[in-house]
């Protein structure tokens, strides 16, 4: 646990117009783990700048450091070298100010809490009065389409619904930045399509900045304004693809059939293959 004191009740203030346009700035980031017998190079010289309102997908083969990169932004891992700023602060300061909401691969809901009280958890930690907490939790559950499930326990919900609860929980304290680590990785394709659609609508209506880790090319192209293609370990950025130019902001599942979509998906696949080629 950190020695620094958590910030008092204040939620993250809504970014004023004077706020910097760049939300996350990563410069020459390198991260090396000391494993039992040899060092593991997880990330190598990664630089990336993420603007307010962006939806960035990190895509790459397993173990390429996508999750590690996001955990560095969240101050859950310490980089070996390089600089990271979040809202102009160090990741630790940003974490202490509760600048981001984090959605993990697994829903990580507390089984002893009802759905509603799970969403209220961060608000409780931040010291929000009980009545406000409840109202805020209900709003967030409504936003992810789970009204009426407030009093259920997590195990009474399907996997997709549980992951929606965890998204509502991440949004509950209204952070500007949403970090999502393969949130739909464990779900079937139909549920996944449905949640992708919901997520893109949620992103349009809330205008959060999102960083999204995924294995799925289709998911990445469908959701993102920009796609960051990463190489196998040590993770480096191979390509950054701008989807916003060719695809509309408001997207339906149909656009996956469009030639623009296919072209971008092809370029992502090329990038991934290129990353793999020197593996053989």
């Amino acid at each position, binding site marked *: 646990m950190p020695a620094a004191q*958590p*910030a008092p009740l204040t939620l993250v203030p809504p970014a004023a117009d004077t706020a910097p346009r760049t939300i996350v700035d990563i410069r020459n980031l390198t991260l090396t783990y000391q494993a039992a017998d040899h060092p593991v190079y997880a990330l190598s010289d990664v630089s990336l700048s993420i603007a307010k309102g962006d939806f960035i997908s990190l895509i790459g083969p397993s173990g390429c450091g996508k999750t590690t990169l996001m955990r560095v932004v969240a101050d859950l891992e310490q980089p070996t070298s390089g600089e990271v700023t979040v809202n102009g602060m160090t990741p630790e300061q940003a*974490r202490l100010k509760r600048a981001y*909401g*984090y959605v*993990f691969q697994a829903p*990580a809901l507390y089984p*002893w809490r009802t759905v509603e009280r799970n969403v209220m958890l961060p608000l409780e*930690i931040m010291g929000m009065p009980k009545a406000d907490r409840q109202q805020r939790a209900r709003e967030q559950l409504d936003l992810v389409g789970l009204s009426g499930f407030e009093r259920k326990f*997590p195990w009474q919900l399907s996997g997709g619904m549980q992951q929606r609860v965890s998204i509502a929980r991440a949004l509950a304290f209204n952070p500007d930045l949403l970090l999502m680590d393969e949130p739909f990785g464990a779900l079937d394709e139909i549920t996944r399509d449905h949640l992708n659609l919901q997520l893109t609508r949620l992103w349009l209506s809330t205008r959060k900045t999102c960083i999204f880790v995924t294995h799925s090319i289709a998911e990445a192209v469908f959701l993102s304004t920009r796609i960051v293609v990463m190489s196998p370990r040590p993770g480096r950025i191979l390509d950054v693809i701008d989807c916003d130019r060719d695809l509309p902001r408001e997207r339906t599942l149909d656009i996956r059939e469009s030639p623009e979509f296919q072209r971008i998906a092809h370029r992502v696949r090329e990038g991934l293959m290129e990353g793999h080629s020197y593996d053989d």
Partner: protein
Amino acid sequence: MTTKHTLPVAVMALAVLVLWYAGAVWLNAPMATDALNRAGQGWTTADLIRATLAMKRPILPTPDQVALDLYNSLTGYPVTSIRNLLYHTGVTAGAALAGFGMGVVLGVALAAGIVQARTLESSLLPWVIASQTVPILAIAPMIVVILGNLGFTGLLPKAIIAAYLCFFPITIGMVKGLRSADPLTLDLMRTYSAGTAQTFRLLRLPASLPYLFTSLKIAVAASVVGAIVAELPTGGQAGLGARLLSGSYYGQTVQIWSALVMAALLSVTLVAAVGLAERALVPGARGGAR
């Protein structure tokens, strides 16, 4: 649910009764044979069986003898009388519960300390384990003597011996429980920049409750054993342990068995009460794991 379970429960109870009666006939037969031979007249197998089931001081009393003794004791005297077994059960239960309470406080405090400070694990845990390798029968009289010298008699020495037996499963279960939180949920608390105390209260403690209650069931049964063992050397006049002791002095095997049955009933009741508390305090407990 209940109707589905009635048959197996009844079959099991019947099997226990049949075995018990068979055991009574077998164990009491030599003494009964002696008695019949001394009477001088001829006897049949039916006579022998009847005699084995109705002995005054049987090696193994029959269930109906024990039941009759329990009935007479429970209904024949007021609850405050030392001839009423319920009075003795109450005395033992008081000591057991006081010891259980002390054991819970000690066990949980030790577990919290061990989880929060790694050094305590290596410095404290060996002593905790060593304490349980000492036979309680050996240490109980010494605790009674020492505390008696210090002027403590009655409930306290018994409660301490009960606590000595029951803090151990609580410590072990609670340490496991406090460490059972999923690493992801710990990361989650970190993203909320929750403090150590908040993480303990909102995550580690509730996550440990299923483990704690499993330990509590073991511990509450152990506390009854501890209280009874503690009543043996105190030479007290009251308590199930005292009844066991006086029963064996005077060869009153029926009295011993009545006390044993009451002790078992007491343990079953206390374990069931812990189960009820678990249902009330651990929401979603019946839903199993995540």
